[in-house]
């Protein structure tokens, strides 16, 4: 049973915290509009994926042990990232296979952790946003959100209610952009090749704006599009849904001063 005003912990994610704070504020705005009381628990840093996916379980478990107490007092935990939400939801319990008490806490936390846009639609029942964006956008399905959490229809449903916005689907929208966390610097040749393919697909739509729900993928695609000289604006989907695109230039674009 959904509480009238659920208390939601915003897990900002490290990349939003460091690179794109506007996305965090957009998330706050959207969650409040959906009727949530939002808090930003202090003590959060990162979900620990860089360690976890590098085989360093001990550090990943330490980070999880610090994060779980900060997040668990809330009704829900919401992150503007499928990757980080997936880490908490799907992988935190796996970190404590030999520790039943922590495993149980991790499972309870995981069950109430969501990616932002799917939370708005699936849990809060949001069907429309009050936002305007003049342009044709294309949407990249980030892998973890898509395959671990089933984020696919929700962002499209809300984008369809943004005034002035047209969606042009790209081919292979579900194919990885080549970011892959540390993969992109461990195997840069392959990563750049993958993101080059993605850039071609994006350009082929004729869209002026690329949206996605994960900062890692966005930084990767924005970086490659810029290197190729493609004039595509790149933004996190929350920026458009919250109507804050006038507050900050697109990812990788300057203020010109």
């Amino acid at each position, binding site marked *: 049973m959904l509480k009238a005003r659920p208390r939601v912990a915003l897990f900002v994610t490290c990349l939003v915290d460091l690179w794109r704070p506007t996305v965090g504020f957009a998330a706050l705005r959207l969650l409040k509009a959906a009727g949530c009381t939002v808090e930003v628990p202090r003590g959060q840093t990162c979900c620990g994926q*860089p*360690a976890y996916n590098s085989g*360093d379980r001990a550090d990943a478990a330490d980070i999880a042990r610090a994060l779980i107490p900060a997040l668990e007092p809330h009704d829900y935990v919401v992150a503007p990232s499928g990757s980080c939400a997936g880490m908490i939801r799907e992988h935190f319990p796996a970190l404590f296979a030999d520790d039943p008490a922590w495993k149980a806490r991790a499972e309870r936390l995981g069950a109430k952790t969501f990616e932002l846009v799917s939370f708005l639609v699936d849990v809060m029942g949001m069907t429309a946003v009050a936002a305007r964006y003049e342009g044709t956008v294309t949407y990249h399905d980030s892998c973890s959100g898509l395959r671990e959490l089933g984020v696919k229809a929700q962002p499209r449903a809300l984008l369809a209610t943004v005034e002035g916005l047209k969606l042009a689907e790209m081919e292979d929208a579900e194919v990885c952009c080549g970011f892959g966390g540390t993969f992109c610097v461990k195997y840069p040749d392959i990563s750049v090749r993958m993101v080059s393919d993605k850039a071609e697909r994006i350009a082929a739509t004729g869209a002026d704006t690329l949206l996605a729900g994960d900062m890692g993928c966005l930084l990767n695609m924005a970086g490659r599009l810029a290197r190729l000289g493609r004039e595509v604006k790149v933004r996190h989907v929350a920026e458009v849904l919250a109507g804050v695109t006038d507050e900050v230039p697109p990812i990788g674009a300057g203020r010109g001063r």
Partner: protein
Amino acid sequence: MQITSPGFKENARVALADAGLQKALANARTGFVAKRARAVAALPEFESLREEGREIKNHVLAHLDFYLEAYARAVEASGGVVHWCETAEDARRTVVEICRSVGARTATKGKSMIAEEIGLNAHLEAAGITPVETDLGEYIIQLRREPPSHIIAPAIHLNREDWIEAFRATHRDLPADRAFPERKTLIDEARSVLRARFLAADVGITGANMLIAETGSSVIVTNEGNGDLTQTLPKVHIVIASIEKVVPTLEDACTILRLLARSATGQDFSTYTTFSTGPRREGDRDGPGQYHVILLDNGRSSMLGTGFQDMLRCIRCAACMNHCPVYGAVGGHAYGWVYPGPMGAVLTPALIGVETAGHLPNASTFCGRCESVCPMKIPLPKMMRHWREREFERHLTPSAARFGLGAWAWVAKRPWLWRLATRVGMGVLGRLGRKRGRFGALPLAGGWTGGRDMPAPEGETFQARYARLKRQGLA
């Protein structure tokens, strides 16, 4: 075959710069994916079949000794011989002994990844027995003396020009100025050359897609019919198969067959699905006089009961590599041994050692597309992560990466330090990148900026801004 997995990065660089390979891969990428999608969409029970397939294999793996013994008894009851081979060397020696016992000079071969795994062709040649590959793709790569680059389409790295070149160089008794106007011309030529080889062969060697414990049968699927000619024409049929290929019953085999072709090539069923049970019986019009099964372990039993057991469910359909963007970028040879793509990234370290194949489970973005199409629902990314954990535990992770990761984790575990360090760091980067919005180069970030710009951060971190707004009563 020579293992080049430690040189994965260099292999990948060469592959990415190989225009011919890239052209061949581009053709392959689109075909397999679209065909599988169509075949799966046309079968409403596909998802429940995946569950059934997984359960069949899990059950077998939990009782592998039982089903292997039952299978062996059934083979022997039908007049066949089972050879239990623990290592690749045991298997090679046994095959050569069987060949020598009938004075074999040539052996035709159906497609077999196990034969590749044990390096059978080189061994047969050294023993004076000429192996003749009869699968079209295997035939061409045998002519070119190179390993397969894909487990069901071994020559997928080649274009038609490569085939024509190899055929002209090899089939020298045919007119040098003959034309190859279409694909069929190539196939016809291979067919006519191979026909004589089929008839002359003393021994036929095939792999097995499955072994059926109930009946003692081996099953192969092909689209060319070459497997049937390989196993029915010669005096001796040798099946080489690894131990995890066994399934309990014919019904189980049929369940898996319904998954296999759809996942592999997008066909409802392969053109040929052939069940072989023992040698020729009295009254049979044809068939081999001897039927041998080489049952190979080669490290698989040591995967049982570990975090890698699920990998033994693999039915070698290749859906994982067909859908893998890394495989699609570099092709199969870059992986440096027999099994490429996601299934190879998990299996290869188990078979040749993670110290040799360590790159393979690391060269993945964990996009999860492989697992999402795997008919046996093998958690491939999870097992690649297991390998990374083994590497980390054994200090096989490169020291620079290890140091960087350690430093990052040390800060990430100290939120106050994290907030301080990121506030300062992002403040500087934000100011430097404010005008242009991105960096073309950054110290220590060559891996990133070699091929893409680094977008500049906004400057003030979220946590700093949030704290400031809170203080000002604005958040």
